[in-house]
């Protein structure tokens, strides 16, 4: 009998990146561009418009240091969660003192149900609610840690 070592499969529905900019719109643009590279988006311009509009409807910053935004849209081809980390902090809207260090973008395709999108959003907001979870990601800054934190995420 031959025993072969099987390396773990890469989860292509998650990605982690370093945010380069300080402005919210620039950070959203970078996250959408990452989703474009994953071929998860049909109309990136429209998706960005939707995300900016969502911010006007109510900020997606949860607490002082992290934000979770998302879209359930026909602009999205495949489900994807992109998490961006910012060492310098992002200016997230007009609330004084809000300096966001972690941004998650949850994308759910339009053909999936809205219920699935809500469950995905709940899984991501739940995973990053605790400071120690976010700190764990900041300490490791790798996909396996992100996968572990988002293990409850419905695919």
């Amino acid at each position: 009998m031959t025993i072969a070592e099987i390396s773990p499969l890469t989860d292509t529905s998650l990605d982690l990146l370093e945010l380069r900019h300080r402005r919210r719109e620039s950070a959203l643009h970078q996250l959408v561009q990452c989703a474009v590279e994953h071929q998860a988006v049909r109309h990136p311009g429209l998706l960005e418009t939707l995300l900016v509009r969502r911010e006007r409807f109510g900020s997606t910053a949860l607490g002082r240091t992290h934000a979770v935004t998302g879209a359930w849209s026909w602009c999205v081809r495949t489900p994807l969660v992109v998490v961006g980390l910012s060492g310098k902090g992002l200016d997230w809207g007009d609330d004084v003192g809000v300096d966001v260090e972690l941004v998650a973008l949850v994308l759910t395709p339009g053909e999936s149900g809205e219920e699935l999108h809500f469950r995905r959003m709940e899984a991501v907001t739940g995973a990053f609610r605790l400071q120690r979870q976010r700190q764990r990601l900041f300490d490791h800054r790798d996909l396996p840690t992100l996968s572990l934190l988002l293990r409850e995420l419905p695919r």
Partner: protein
Amino acid sequence: MSAVEGFLELHDLDVLLAQAGDDARRGRLRRMGYTLGPAPALVRERERLAGKLDRRWLNLYERSLGRYGRGLSAVRNRVCLGCRLTLPTSAAPPPGEAQLHVCEGCGRLLLWD
């Protein structure tokens, strides 16, 4: 902006409006920790956007929106993802062109992949 993109943007705005106007959805978002703003600004934005779109297509879109809750559907491998009807080959737009079509099965506007 093409007509297809216009309806896509309108559809996304309608999804936001549905979240803003529905107590169950708003409650769920609040439980996640979101603070939500007032919906009237979104309604005004929708009126502005709808004003730019072709009236005939808009009527068809709004009819499907009222009936199914969504006025737009994507097509993948010639199948309408709204009602799962296989569409005839002749219904597909020429490659590289984005055109508006209506699904023969459900009446939603179609977004060809």
